[in-house]
């Protein structure tokens, strides 16, 4: 495999963009990434477009061509990618794979979603309807339900507290308040999180990520070529994608996908958790982030609650997590979420993260989990990026 560099990034603000078309959102992100990379559209040889379920709420089919036509990017192979909440990361990974394998030298990946165009009950029925693999959705199995079940077992086995869960939101919203692209612009207190409306006990509303509209994009190329285009390349040290095994006999306090993907990613990068300077992890719910700390090896099994409480995932801690504000602040703009995590990581590694900058960051880990049923996520993607 060849070494691949991320040379250009771009994204929209996440939030409500119902006054724009999904095409406009995609165009904005791709144009920014192409300009940032200083490439011409004709230099791009292949493109992947991440979009989760736009076919349920508007234009989504062949969304890649619809967006890229506006930039004169025609003729080349363009493919839409879908993999649940990990859609954006999978689009990125396809582009990386094409360059790493030598199939082409310059590739574009983007993710886009426009979720605010339907009401929340319609969206919930789409999501629960998607769970028909075991008809769990038909019986009231929801995303907050799954992560509440995970939280409860974790609390029982390891003594994780409601306060520790809420601290994840407090930390991420504090970072989110420093990110101009975040949907939720304000920090919140522990009391506000704990006393907010209950969604699925023990998870209150601020512990559940909002949905949103937006897009994010990146231009990738070989390490050799990157030298001509940028003085701040960010390299892909590992790219791993796995699917779930949905274990029955183990305690539901972890995600098997996370553990296997992390192990493979560290192996591929020749690095370990001790080398990671910061991370963007899939904090769709507060309990998810605590479990990811453990699954990714940031702390020992069962120590996730302590990890957040002792500030080890905060600024100045062992591994600052979700400096972008995470899904809990930005919103989960499904097709764009993974790409958005990647562009935050690139900003950090370039030293361009403004008030959120982690000083001296050299190696970052990006984790995106997608789709869930039974006791596992359907997909998990991890990238380790370095400067």
């Amino acid at each position, binding site marked *: 495999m060849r070494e691949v560099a991320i040379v250009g990034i771009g994204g929209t603000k996440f939030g409500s963009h119902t006054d724009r078309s999904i095409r406009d959102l995609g165009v904005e992100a791709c144009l920014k990434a192409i300009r940032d990379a200083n490439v011409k559209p004709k230099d791009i040889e292949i493109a992947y477009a991440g979009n989760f379920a736009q076919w349920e709420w508007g234009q989504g089919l062949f969304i890649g061509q619809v967006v890229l036509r506006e930039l004169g990017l025609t003729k080349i192979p363009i493919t839409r990618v879908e993999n649940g909440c990990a859609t954006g990361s999978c689009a990125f990974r396809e582009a990386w794979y094409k360059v790493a394998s030598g199939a082409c030298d310059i590739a574009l990946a983007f993710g886009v979603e426009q979720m605010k165009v339907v009401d929340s*009950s319609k969206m*919930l*029925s789409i999501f*629960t309807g998607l769970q028909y693999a*075991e*008809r*769990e*959705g*038909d*019986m*009231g*199995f*929801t995303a*907050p*339900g799954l992560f*509440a*079940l*995970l*939280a*409860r*077992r974790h609390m*029982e086995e390891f003594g994780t507290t409601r306060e520790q869960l809420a601290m994840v939101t407090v930390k991420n919203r504090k970072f989110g308040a420093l990110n101009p692209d975040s949907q939720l612009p304000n920090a919140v207190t522990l009391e506000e999180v704990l006393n907010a*409306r*209950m*969604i*699925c*006990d*023990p998870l209150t509303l601020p512990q559940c990520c909002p949905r949103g509209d937006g897009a994010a994009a990146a231009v990738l190329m070989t390490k050799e070529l990157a030298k001509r285009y940028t003085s701040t390349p960010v390299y892909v040290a590992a790219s791993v994608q796995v699917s779930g095994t949905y*274990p*029955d*006999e183990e*305690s*539901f306090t972890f995600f098997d996908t996370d553990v296997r993907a992390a192990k493979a990613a560290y192996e591929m990068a020749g690095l370990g958790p001790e080398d990671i300077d910061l991370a963007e992890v899939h904090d769709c719910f507060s309990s998810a982030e605590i479990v990811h700390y453990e699954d990714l090896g940031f702390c020992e099994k069962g120590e996730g609650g302590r990890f957040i409480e002792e500030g080890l995932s905060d600024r100045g801690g062992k591994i600052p997590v979700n400096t972008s504000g995470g899904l809990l602040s930005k919103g989960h703009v499904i097709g764009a979420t993974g790409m958005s995590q990647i562009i935050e990581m690139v900003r950090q590694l370039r030293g361009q993260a403004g008030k959120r900058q982690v000083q001296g960051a050299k190696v970052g880990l990006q984790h995106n989990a997608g789709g869930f049923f*039974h*006791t596992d996520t359907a997909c998990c993607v991890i990238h380790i990026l370095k400067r």
Partner: protein
Amino acid sequence: MSGNQYSGKGKLIEERWFKDSPEGMVLVGSRCETCKKTFFPKKLVCPDCFDGELKEVPLSKKGKLHTYALSVMGPSDMEKPYVIGFIDLPEGIKLFAILTDCDPWDEVLKIDMEMEMVIGKIKEDEYGNSIRSYKFRPVVTEVKR
């Protein structure tokens, strides 16, 4: 809830999950004769060894409460709030289930407690007909007189 909530009125959410037995309605899974694993719902082939013959087996009506949660939000066709959980069945299956007869849920429910299966209404279809499925409730222990 009314006393007749486990009566036979209303259609089952998924006929192929259930079977009548001397013990009443039970869930049915498939067991691989080679690797001895049991699966629910029934499979066409053993996903573990892709080899063994599958035999239809009834699942235990009792299991342990692995974890639980109160869902305040939920699909529009369900009455809220409702309580959910994973039940560890002796067959090695972690079964998602709606929990019932556990009011107040945060006092009654304890992790690893014994639970038993009942059949009851979980929601209504668009015409107001009951849709029934399996649910689990704490095992009722006999009170000594």
